[in-house]
């Protein structure tokens, strides 16, 4: 399949998904919430893909950035720190508010820069992965001990209000998934993207060619954190109760990682395809064998890795537009 054809299929798919939302009865169907989660996981997968697939830095801390984004949104909203008196006039102002969502991403990105500068300047490969894993646990404990501001072990509850439809979640999720993919496409075709690939493939050679490798790596780490933070923000609008055990669950890091690898690490469509396929398998298992579904999930991961180690897209190593 040529890249051109793939792009057309993708564009048609997105249009169909967007239009399907307005079919009568679609919002109430099970497929609707299923797709929302596919979008959410695809965004998280793409975030990991940026730092690990394109950047070659295997981060095991993306759940921390997801959680930071979720917490930021819930705290801003429940404490009304952002819009002041406007909130009284427009009670829905925080709902899918782009500023609140972007702030969720920015807080995560800021944390990524703070932790990424020392980690990435000193650590490589496995040590970096271990460091990010430790960082995720630290963030969780800090938020549990954050007192009234972070709600301790219980967390923060955002005011749900009267929202009774998934339609905005679905559309925003779809939009973000497409937006992130388009942004990555632009990014990977830019000078910066070339530098990132160069650092991944041979850091020493990249450095010898005048690339500031630390800057490139930290930027990818922060970009990944930003995307994960926005995804966390999106999840807050769905779950409303943000608690340390729910949003810092390791699954928010492990599942997107697995989806990316199944779809194809370092490809643009891989994470989306992987999120769709793997979430479908998990969800089917949940419906078919409710008591055993985590067992099936574990088996699926093992089988996928044994038989599809290169990913569904099978174009690893080649730069895919």
């Amino acid at each position: 399949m040529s890249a051109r054809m793939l792009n057309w299929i993708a564009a048609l798919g997105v249009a169909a998904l967007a239009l399907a939302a307005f079919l009568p009865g679609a919002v109430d169907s099970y497929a609707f919430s299923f797709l929302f989660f596919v979008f959410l996981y695809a965004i998280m997968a793409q975030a990991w893909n940026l730092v690990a697939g394109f950047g070659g830095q295997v981060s095991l801390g993306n759940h921390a950035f997801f959680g930071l984004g979720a917490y930021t949104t819930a705290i801003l909203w429940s404490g009304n720190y952002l819009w002041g008196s406007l909130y009284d006039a427009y009670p829905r102002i925080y709902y899918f508010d782009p500023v609140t969502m972007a702030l969720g991403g920015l807080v995560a990105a800021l944390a990524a820069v703070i932790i990424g500068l020392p980690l990435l300047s000193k650590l490589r490969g496995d040590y970096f992965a271990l460091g990010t894993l430790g960082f995720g646990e630290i963030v969780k404990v800090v938020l549990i001990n954050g007192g009234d501001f972070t709600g301790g072990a219980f967390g923060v509850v955002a005011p749900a209000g009267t929202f009774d439809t998934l339609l905005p979640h679905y559309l925003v999720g779809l939009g973000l998934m497409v937006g992130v993919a388009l942004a990555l496409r632009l990014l990977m075709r830019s000078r910066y993207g070339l530098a990132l690939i160069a650092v991944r493939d041979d850091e020493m050679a990249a450095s010898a060619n005048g690339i500031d490798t630390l800057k490139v790596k930290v930027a990818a780490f922060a970009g990944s954190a930003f995307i994960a933070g926005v995804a966390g923000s999106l999840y807050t609008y769905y779950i409303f109760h943000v608690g340390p055990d729910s949003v810092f669950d390791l699954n928010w890091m492990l599942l997107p990682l697995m989806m990316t690898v199944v779809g194809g690490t370092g490809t643009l469509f891989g994470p989306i395809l992987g999120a769709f396929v793997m979430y479908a398998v998990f969800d089917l298992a949940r419906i078919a064998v409710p008591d055993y579904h985590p067992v099936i999930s574990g088996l699926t991961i093992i089988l996928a890795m044994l038989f599809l180690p290169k990913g569904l897209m099978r174009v690893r190593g080649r730069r895919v537009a």
Partner: protein
Amino acid sequence: MLNIPPPEILLQLSINGALGGAMYGVAAVGLSLIFGTMRLIFLAQGAMIILAAYFVRALFYGLGIDPFLSLLIVVPVGLGVGWLIYQGLFRRAAAEEDRNISLLIAVGLMFLVQNLMTVVWGGNTAAVVTTYTASGIELLGVRTSFTRSMGFLIALAGTGLVVLFLRGTLVGKAVRAASEDMEAATLMGISPHRVNAIAFAIGISLAGAAGVAVATTFPFNPFAGFIFSLKALVALALGGIGNVAGALAGGIILGLIEAYVQYFISGGWTNAIAYGVFLAVLMFKPEGLFSRPYKKA
């Protein structure tokens, strides 16, 4: 602000911390071996420890076998299971350059084992209660739990045996060579699959030994293992990756840190400080606390 407590309390804290930390240590020794040859963060180690703990419990309540005596069964079974896990699950992935694949297989195995345990034994907390569970012994003038002390001895003995194996046998030498440089070791005629499988076999049998220690000391549930994996990783980094005796020492240090933080600061911060130390060691002394300066040949 910081009141220095009387020496008895310090001693008590230190002994409790060291005894608890030895369990992280024995888990870390297994991780260290597996990481050494395969460069794999084997996240399922904690789940394997809990699996062994359930196995010990089943042996005790089903067949009446004393938990400490069951070491004689658990450790050989662990060797076999480890060998099978490598041959069945990791053999193919070990040849791949992309090590995320091995990591994900470990994650899948962890999910699988955790949830199979839930299906078989239920998600509730289980424990092994023997006649000596509540008994204590006098150690350096401090009363400590008998089972914890036994756990410490198991950790020491397990690590000691592994060190003897690595230093005293030709196969052990091959494992050490492979951890230092797999490519060079392969050129010397060492089969990577063989050393990987040996590392896995020993790693899982150590998980079995740790399972005995856990089963006799703590109540456990199917999901309690993951925190063990994380703590073992911290111990591993403290002791220096690839340094087997250091991994045990790293576990003991981690146990001490936790005991002191719990006493002097608060239990809620234990994990953050433990991981903070972990990050600091990774950053400033990535070769671990005990390694001698590296000399180039």
